[in-house]
């Protein structure tokens, strides 16, 4: 997938190279339709348990399967999802690569042994049934944060496969992500050059809002951008970026337009309250520009290009946005895969340069 070397276009380890340097799609989602799909990748004990205990589904309510946001109408029906992604998304927009973020509900599982078993199965399934089929594909390591040691073990197990380019966690879990409990995960991430990808979604250990459970799914989805605000505050205030100076965090499907206003508030409070968090030795605005990246779908902006240009100006950085289609989620119609109003010289940065700068492993040739 190296932009320097061009790109394979005919499958894993293929030899034909072109000089196409199309966009890198930083957020696409493979679908697991049933736990049966994972059976070949589970131990005997858990494979038996699927049957003995009737464990059929780990689907999360974060994306109800028939909700409009969950899949674009023309991406709903397929006989082969890998083929659909490769032809209707990657070929369609000449993408040189895509990063698979699997949202199967492994993070929701209460039993930590079960969680690690299914996380391993998901990662092995992705490697065999997706990454092996098209050399443009890369993936995030699904980790069971229910137990930090298990999470680190899973990172160590998968990291030697260079096609895993990121560590994937959800926007809402049991504890704020900055808490020191999680730092071994960030140490492993930095050691292997893997960004932490935080994706919309919840383990539902807490209501999706800090004022309790809302009535409607549309509120659950809308609240995701709020979860990211709390997590960014946590990561900064606990000192994660002071401790792990090389760490990158990517906010996936977080929405974007909330970021400037949020940082103005946090940075103002930091000026008044920094004695409480003395390790935060520079403005959160600067920390975020150095360490945090966001995918562009959804942007959460109006269609008016002038407003989008003003919002981009508020970010005060050309380095933070990463291209994503969010396949198969329904964020846009037709070929409008870039929001209108993004300045032309920024488009290439968002589509190619920023992903390559964020994901070290994308600069390596396909294995």
């Amino acid at each position: 997938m190296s932009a320097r070397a061009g790109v394979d276009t005919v499958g894993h380890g293929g030899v034909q190279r072109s000089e196409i340097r199309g966009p890198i799609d930083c957020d696409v989602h493979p679908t697991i339709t049933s736990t049966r799909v994972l059976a070949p990748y589970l131990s005997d004990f858990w494979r038996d348990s699927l049957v003995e205990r009737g464990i059929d589904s780990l689907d999360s309510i974060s994306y109800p399967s028939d909700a409009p946001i969950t899949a674009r109408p023309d991406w709903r029906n397929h006989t082969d999802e890998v083929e659909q992604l490769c032809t209707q998304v990657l070929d369609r927009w000449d993408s040189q690569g895509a990063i698979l973020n699997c949202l199967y509900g492994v993070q929701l599982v209460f039993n930590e042994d079960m969680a690690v078993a299914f996380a391993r199965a998901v990662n092995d399934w992705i490697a065999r049934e997706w990454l092996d089929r098209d050399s443009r594909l890369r993936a995030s390591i699904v980790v069971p944060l229910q137990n930090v040691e298990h999470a680190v073990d899973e990172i160590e197990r998968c990291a030697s496969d260079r096609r895993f380019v990121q560590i994937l966690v959800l926007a809402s879990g049991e504890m704020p992500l900055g808490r020191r409990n999680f730092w071994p995960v960030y140490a492993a991430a930095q050691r292997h050059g893997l960004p932490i990808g935080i994706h919309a979604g919840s383990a539902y250990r807490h209501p999706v809002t800090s004022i309790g459970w809302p009535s409607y799914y549309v509120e659950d989805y809308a609240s995701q951008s709020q979860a990211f605000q709390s997590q960014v505050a946590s990561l900064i205030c606990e000192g994660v970026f002071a401790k792990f100076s090389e760490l990158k965090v990517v906010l996936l499907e977080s929405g974007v337009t909330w970021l400037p206003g949020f940082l103005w508030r946090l940075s103002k409070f930091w000026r008044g309250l920094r004695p409480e968090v003395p390790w935060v030795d520079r403005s959160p605005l600067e920390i975020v520009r150095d360490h945090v990246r966001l995918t562009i779908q959804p942007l959460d902006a109006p269609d008016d290009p002038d407003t989008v240009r003003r919002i981009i100006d508020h970010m005060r950085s050309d380095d933070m946005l990463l291209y994503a289609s969010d396949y198969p989620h329904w964020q846009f119609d037709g070929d409008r895969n870039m929001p209108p109003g993004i300045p032309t010289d920024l488009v290439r940065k968002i589509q190619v340069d920023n992903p390559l700068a964020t994901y070290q492993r994308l600069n390596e040739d396909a294995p």
Partner: protein
Amino acid sequence: MNVAAKPSLDHVMPQSTEAGPVDCDIHTRVRSIEDLKPYLSAHWWHYLKTYGMRARHGFAKAPPFPKAAPNAARRDAWPPDGGFPATNLEFLRTQHLDAYGISFGIMNPLVATGQGDQNDDLSAALATATNDWQLDTFVTPEPRLRASVVVPYEDGAASAAEIRRRAGDHRYAHVLMMSRTAEPAGKRRYWPIYEAAAEAGLPIGIHVFGYSGWAGSSSGWPSFYIEEMTDHAVSCQSLVTSLVMEGVFERYPNLKVVLIESGFAWMPALGWRLDRVWARMRDEVPHVRQPPSAYLKKHFWISTQPMEEPERPEHLLDVVDWMGADRLMFASDYPHWDFDDPRFALPASLGPERRQAILSGNARALYRLG
């Protein structure tokens, strides 16, 4: 508490009540719980002395996150009588109302009001007591001050009764709730509050804080006060979402909501996001008839403090453009440490007309201040 800094009166503002700022957030408070004793029954006084207030967090005598300063107050706001900040009317006048030429000040009491207590009946008794106490202690001797109708918001019926008890009394500016309710603010259990407020023509003021009984974020409890303060803007986004998506404004089309101390820079972005998800999934919420941003522009006002400060001040003007300068109302948060000074808080680049609207005109119109 020693007063380290003397109140500075060097920059006195014009004292015309016509031009003077309206301060939408002043935190007068009781000197001690004894101040409420005359307004409480023997039962509730006994209850308070025996069991105390029990917020939906574990600390008996302290907030969950230690504040930046004692009582979250400016170091210079402790009155010479040794009492708590904003308990001494004479000192409040000298240091704040007169010093800045404040024409009206809206009091949002936060201490010993019983809001969000685990015991709804105690909440109701303390709310009624607080509402009487505000008049006797502050509004009667100082008519520039206006009271809040403090309501025991977890009990909708009791709250509605308290609002109806105060309806028509113009010494009350609005109904006061805290932002972190036990359920999202749009849920039906709170509708009696909105119904009574709309009927009385009183806006609902929602001040940040309160303890919902849920963790401070959707991912659990943060560690620090700075996170708690930042997360208030986050929970206010959830409460605005709830009020819109539950159809509260379709049911009560005259309802007006004032968000206090939540910041406002998040409001345009929230409107854009809600419009998008509503357009995609409006079949789930058919009772929401307009794009969510239309409700935001019609039903919500936001107080300015703590004023967001972008690196480039012109970016704040974009936000004001997007939400409308008529939505913003100045607040100082006196006597708290993160006080905004009416002389300096609003960027000069807003221009005199918008500055004046935010400093006083918008609040005068909303609260029908003379």
